[in-house]
């Protein structure tokens, strides 16, 4: 599938039938400050079981912070996160509250975050050795199976420093799925990769959903990737989800900020009507200087 195909809206009957209406992960009124800076401001997100939800938005607007809250790497200042209906992250949560949900969650970091002191095989085997009763032979099989799934058979002995960016991402993915998570989180999985390797990762995300039925949340600013893999896209702008819908709906959105982002335009436009774009006389920073990322908004 090339980019033009990917950009073309998929009719509802061609959309994957993996998702159902059961809510897998629910974020309600999530709020987070870093010092005086409000990074997440009343974020609400409802991810259905088996669907791929892409969170798009400019760098610095809080996309990765949402993932870190879901994983329990950060404690929210307000709001809550629930997995399968059970709330596990609130402002009063303790580290122990995240132990159970983490067994159902997996995360692929932007740079893969492989342990540099361990080879590829040990990287994937590490959590298996600690959290399962599998024998060494069984672990070896799971490692080989994981590497095969991401198309990297036979590289168990290589060190992370010997791998290219794309290979590292795929090994990171193999490590994350080795524990068979129910929800996979991807933090900008294609941003540091060339377009071809990026497309491979997109295919892998789709494959994992097809083979393992995983629910996925993908943080990205790569629109071709989002159009290709997403069932739903949510756009975050200055810490708030300002739009959520299917790829077709988001493309047809009349929200000027959404249109500015998905079209990759520096300047903000007043409106989008009949596929015609009417340019605003000022850019986004001049239009709303008080809302620039990194500033306190009270």
């Amino acid at each position, binding site marked *: 599938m090339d980019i033009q195909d990917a950009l073309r809206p998929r009719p509802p009957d061609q959309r994957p039938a993996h998702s159902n209406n059961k809510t897998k992960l629910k974020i309600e009124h999530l709020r987070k400050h870093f010092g005086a800076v409000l990074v997440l401001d009343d974020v609400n997100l409802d991810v259905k079981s088996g669907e791929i939800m892409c969170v798009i938005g400019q760098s610095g607007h809080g996309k990765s912070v949402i993932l*870190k809250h879901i*994983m*329990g*790497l950060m*404690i929210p200042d307000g709001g809550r996160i629930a997995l399968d209906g059970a709330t596990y992250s609130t402002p009063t949560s303790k580290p122990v509250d995240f*132990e159970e949900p*983490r*067994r159902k*969650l*997996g*995360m692929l*970091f*932007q*740079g893969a*975050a*492989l*342990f*540099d002191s361990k080879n590829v095989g040990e990287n994937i085997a*590490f*959590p298996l050795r*600690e*959290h399962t009763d599998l024998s060494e032979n069984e672990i070896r099989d799971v490692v080989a199976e994981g590497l095969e799934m991401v198309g990297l058979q036979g590289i168990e002995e290589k060190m992370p420093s010997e791998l290219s960016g794309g290979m590292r991402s795929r090994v*990171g993915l193999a*490590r*994350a799925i080795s*524990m068979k998570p129910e929800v996979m989180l991807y933090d900008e999985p294609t941003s540091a990769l060339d377009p071809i390797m990026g497309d491979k990762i997109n295919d892998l995300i789709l494959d994992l959903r097809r083979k393992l039925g995983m629910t996925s949340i993908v943080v990205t600013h790569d629109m071709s990737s989002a159009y290709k893999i997403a069932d739903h896209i949510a756009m975050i702008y200055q810490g708030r989800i300002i739009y959520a819908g299917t790829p077709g709906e988001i493309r047809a959105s009349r929200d000027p900020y959404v249109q500015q982002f998905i079209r990759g335009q520096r300047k903000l436009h007043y409106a989008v009507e009949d596929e015609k774009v009417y340019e605003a006389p000022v850019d986004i920073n001049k239009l709303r200087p008080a809302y620039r990322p990194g500033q306190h908004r009270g």
Partner: protein
Amino acid sequence: MISPLRIPVAALEKTGRLGFGLRNAAYVFFAHVLYISELAYKTVVRAPLLFKNVSLSIEQMYIIGLESLGLVAVTSVFVGGEAVVQATYQFSGYVTLRYLGMVVCKALITELCPVITALVVSSRISTAIAAEIGSMKATEQLDAMACLSLDPIRYLIVPKTIACVCMMPVLVIFSELVAFTASIITALLFTDVSLTTYLLSLRMFFFPKDLFIGVAKTMVFGMVIAMTGAHFGFQSTKGAEGVGEATTKAVMTAAVLILVFDFVIAFLVL
């Protein structure tokens, strides 16, 4: 990963730079000591889990112990030699040189070898630990461990701490052997003392307690070295620049704490 309680330390450091001077520097130092103590407690609590991953500690013992032997040997040669030169100079005209061996022996086993070995090892190990943990933090490896429900203190800090605590006494005994040998050679080459006189003097007023205390306190120094490195590694921010800052702070704090503990132990035990 990092406790929210750490924020005041950063704030204090910032105001300290703005010119609040010594008082703030003292607050910052004690705040760090508090967090290092908290980390030490968490490490000790997890220490029994070591037996599930003994290979990690053995690997660290090799890195921390065996790979430091060369450095310790070179410094010990000069410590032993310098002890003889200094003692000879201080004795000249006042004390007979037949006591030279005794004084050198006391100085080496109670203070010079334990403290200088600890300082030298801390310059190599606490910085290495801070840099390793700091760069793991910068590249999100610590977050990845948390996501995989792997406790960084258990898998990273406990093996290093056990290795430091176990290998420091070994390094100090090795250092004392090298320093004694160097002191004998120096005494024979540069003073009028005979080998027999020097060796008899070495045995004079030798108390095994001195040797035991000298070696035992290095276990505390080993703990200090591992904890300061780990603490500043966990605290590092700002990527590569932060890692550099963490290593500097780790070695400075380790050096100060080694001397503080040396004083406290001497005060309590001797």
